[in-house]
């Protein structure tokens, strides 16, 4: 049942300790800062977080990591010039890291949403990120077996939602939003604008409302 919720605090209130939480965004583009801040305020802890990065600067996911709420990061690119909170936790041995090539990360998220039990991909073959994984020679290429990444909750950012929960995004802020919306059991979306049902051209809907559970407008 789709719900329109008044505040980000209420939107994230159901997230339990120990949850796996997908957070949209690539760098700051598409990162749902207000939902992340609300998750920080909620006190939920022992989280596994799936994001491309591991937080930048002193905001959003970086703060969640700083406050020790994240037990494990699943990401492709944790180390950046301003990822000091992750760097400190990692070096102190206080956060677990599952490093995944970016395209494998995306496809593993997509696979979860699409009900795929796993897939073979040439990406990563022969590298340390494929160590211990099942490999096969398929179509003349060595390929690595990768499994889906499921989540309890996805926090994503879109530009607009209509009354049915259909979403459109803006430019490269789309990034992980559509696939995370499909992969999580419960998808919470912050949008800049809620438009009446029928106001979005069905030909241009990017994420159909079936994948969306909660919508909150953020000014």
């Amino acid at each position, binding site marked *: 049942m789709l719900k329109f919720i008044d505040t980000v605090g209420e939107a994230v209130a159901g997230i339990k300790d120990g949850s796996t939480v997908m957070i949209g965004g690539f760098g700051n583009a598409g990162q749902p800062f207000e939902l992340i801040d609300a998750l920080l305020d909620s006190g939920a802890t022992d989280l596994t977080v799936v994001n491309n990065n591991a937080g930048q600067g002193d905001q959003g996911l970086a703060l969640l990591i700083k406050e020790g709420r994240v037990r494990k990061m699943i990401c*492709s690119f944790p180390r950046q010039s301003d990822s000091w909170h992750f760097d400190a936790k990692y070096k102190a041995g206080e956060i677990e890291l599952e490093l995944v090539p970016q395209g494998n990360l995306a496809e593993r998220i997509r696979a979860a949403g699409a009900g795929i039990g796993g897939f073979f991909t040439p990406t990563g073959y022969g590298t340390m990120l494929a160590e211990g994984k099942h490999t096969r020679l398929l179509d003349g290429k060595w390929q690595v077996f990768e499994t889906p990444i499921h989540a309890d909750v996805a926090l994503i950012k879109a530009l607009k939602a209509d009354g049915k929960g259909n979403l459109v995004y803006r430019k490269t802020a789309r990034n992980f939003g559509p696939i995370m919306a499909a992969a999580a059991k419960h998808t919470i979306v912050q949008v800049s604008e809620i438009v009446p049902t029928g106001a979005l051209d069905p030909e241009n809907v990017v994420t159909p409302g079936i994948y969306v559970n909660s919508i909150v407008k953020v000014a």
Partner: protein
Amino acid sequence: MSTQTSTKPLGRDDLARLVARDIAPGSFVNLGIGQPTLVSNYLTEEQNITLHTENGMLGMGPEAKGEEIDGDLINAGKIPVTELPGASYFHHADSFAIMRGGHLDICVLGAFQVSATGDLANWHTGAPDAIPAVGGAMDLATGAKDVFVMMTLLTRDGVSKLVDTCSYPLTGVGCVTRVYTDKAVFLIAPDGVSVRETFGCTFEELQELVPVPLKAAGAVVGL
């Protein structure tokens, strides 16, 4: 040797100009972060190249300046960019399907090392205290039809980065087809490494620097 086309080693911009000139008209291209990004400065309108950025866009334009800067429009290096007419946006799984599916003609990447069989090492030094970060490097190395590497031939300590076997952790196996360096352009094929042209050194001088048997392009080993 007739392979020498310049009396001096090439600078970063000259090398970028050379790579740009070698990209076939109408190609779909991904330029890696860092030095490869310079290539975009030398692509001409007549070439009609479409640039892909793995965070979800085809038709990427130049870096955004001043009022053009839009936080929702960035490239894979998280730098604000612009969109060209005919651009398209797509989600991350589609963006990497474009790579993995073999739809990109060329990607241009930097490297720590390239082996004689085209293995690439460009993501991790392997140092025990380094925080590993891979991003799209492995996907790019594996997916494009051609993988061009741009790098200096030698490390700061004067050691060749074109090697028999990579000592750094691998990014991809047998994926590199061409290596552009300040001293030479190398072509990597199943029958070995050939030198297309040299800059500021002769073929023989180049062979002294590189611990891999080299062939002059179109010639036989030992010439």
